């Protein structure tokens, strides 16, 4: 696309929003309050406790992909600080597993004898472990992979022990297109599909089931979870923060500030934003080599090549690159032509968050796909690192007492919408 004078290029250009004279997102969503945002929700402990109670303990939370659990007895554990019982409680751990009948299940990782944690795996390694039975190390109570209590050593010495009432405590668990979610609310207000409906509809044919994780990284950062998400869901920072990796890919003469080409606001905190590739971008030699052999880390800059990846580019924007789907509350799924990036944001306290970022590509068909995937993985890893770099500096400033409100522009619609949605739920 280096020849800017072709008819096709001119036609695509005509379809870009009129950024010179308009604020297109505010025109599309005129009812939103575009005023300054008080910083309290980013820094207030009481507000954070409300978020835990009204959002994280009530909603479906994404915990991992089915590809981590290929066989019966496969499991991983996950500590979820945001659903701890009280402010100062130790955080609970969960087992997410595939039982012997092939069903995906989730339980509290808590022995029903005297409470000991059953599986002691480090949950940040992304290892899949396998067990025929979940056996508690303390006194050896044995649970089946479906959570039922199988065997109690020296059972006769107990008093009226009814083993059927002492299985691992289940939590609600549901799967959408290989994404596993759990919900610790004993009676969830909604089904998973009701909660994620706009994304499920838009991406219903996207080939998530054929996409495999190629890289995953985590960082525990001193920042509020919403401020962490925000750094990954707007383009305003691209030219500055990503100066070392990929600014020319997204910022160029047509769009120097990396504005989104479109954005969609959905009920219940859900949203999606579309970004464009800069047609000025001349990929470096290695990038070109990779593009000829497999999927790169974003779509080629042709307008409408999403047929193999239905659901991308919902407004059929020109120069399409990728979409950022804000799956409320704490997940970003960024589909592109070739795969998707994922970002999880796990609140630990009001100013501490665990971020998990991943890059996922269509399962490789030929050896050169592996090389192309590896190239994309490396470049994205560096860009993700850039995205995390500002987070702690942001939190320090938000807590400094020197700023009362944040002011957001038209293109920062996603941070604004997340903020508004959380505030509405906490105050509602």
């Amino acid at each position: 696309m280096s020849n800017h004078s072709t008819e096709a290029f001119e036609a695509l250009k005509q379809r870009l929003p009129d950024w010179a004279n308009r604020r297109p997102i505010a025109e599309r969503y005129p009812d939103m309050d575009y005023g300054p945002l008080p910083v309290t929700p980013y820094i207030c402990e009481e507000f954070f406790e409300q978020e835990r109670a009204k959002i994280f303990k009530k909603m479906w939370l994404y915990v991992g992909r089915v590809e981590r659990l290929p066989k019966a007895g496969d499991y991983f554990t996950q500590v979820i600080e945001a659903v701890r019982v009280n402010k100062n409680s130790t955080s609970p751990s969960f087992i997410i597993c595939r039982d012997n009948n092939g069903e995906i299940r989730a339980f509290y990782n808590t022995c029903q004898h005297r409470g000991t944690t059953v599986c002691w795996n480090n949950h940040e390694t992304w290892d899949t472990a396998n067990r025929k039975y979940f056996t508690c190390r303390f006194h050896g109570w044995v649970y089946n992979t479906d959570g039922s209590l199988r065997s109690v050593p020296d059972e006769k010495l107990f008093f009226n022990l009814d083993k059927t009432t002492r299985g691992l405590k289940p939590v609600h668990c549901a799967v959408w297109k290989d994404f596993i979610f759990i919900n610790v609310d004993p009676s969830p207000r909604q089904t998973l599909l009701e909660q994620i409906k706009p994304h499920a509809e838009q991406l219903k044919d996207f080939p998530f089931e054929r996409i495999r994780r190629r890289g995953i990284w985590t960082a525990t950062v001193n920042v509020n979870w919403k401020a962490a998400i925000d750094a990954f869901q707007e383009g305003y920072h691209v030219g500055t923060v990503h100066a070392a990796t990929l600014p020319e890919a997204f910022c160029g003469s047509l769009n120097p500030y990396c504005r989104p080409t479109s954005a969609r606001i959905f009920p219940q905190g859900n949203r999606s934003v579309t970004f464009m590739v800069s047609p000025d971008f001349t990929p470096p030699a290695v990038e070109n080599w990779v593009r000829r052999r497999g999927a790169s880390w974003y779509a080629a800059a042709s307008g409408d090549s999403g047929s193999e990846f239905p659901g991308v580019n919902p407004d059929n924007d020109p120069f399409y690159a990728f979409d950022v789907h804000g799956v409320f509350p704490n997940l970003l799924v960024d589909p592109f032509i070739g795969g998707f990036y994922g970002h999880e944001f796990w609140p630990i306290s009001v100013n501490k968050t665990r971020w998990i970022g991943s890059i996922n590509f269509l399962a490789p068909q030929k050896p050169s796909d592996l090389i192309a995937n590896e190239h994309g993985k490396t470049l994205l890893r560096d860009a993700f690192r850039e995205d995390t770099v500002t987070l702690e500096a942001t939190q320090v400033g938000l807590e400094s007492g020197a700023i009362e409100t944040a002011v957001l522009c038209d293109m920062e619609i996603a941070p604004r919408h997340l903020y508004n949605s959380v505030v509405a739920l906490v105050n509602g």
Partner: protein
Amino acid sequence: MAVNSVRQFVPPTGPTVAVYRLADGYFATDDRCTHGEAELSEGDIEGDEIVCPFHLGKFAIRTGEPTAAPCFAALRCHRVTLAEDGNLYLDWPE
């Protein structure tokens, strides 16, 4: 049976039996672990020991002797022979 594998055998009477194949032949013990309710035929073979799937106790397959806690009582052993017809036969008391 593959070398280094175990499988369950249900005799017409009495408790189930775990039949093992090691590199040098066939062996059999009671299937039920002496520590608890596990079936050793669900366990894994490590060298010439069977590892219980419940608490990772171990027994020597050839002798039935317990070799790792929490197993302290020996397993009953049974004799198996590979006949010329290719079938395995188990000596059974009843």
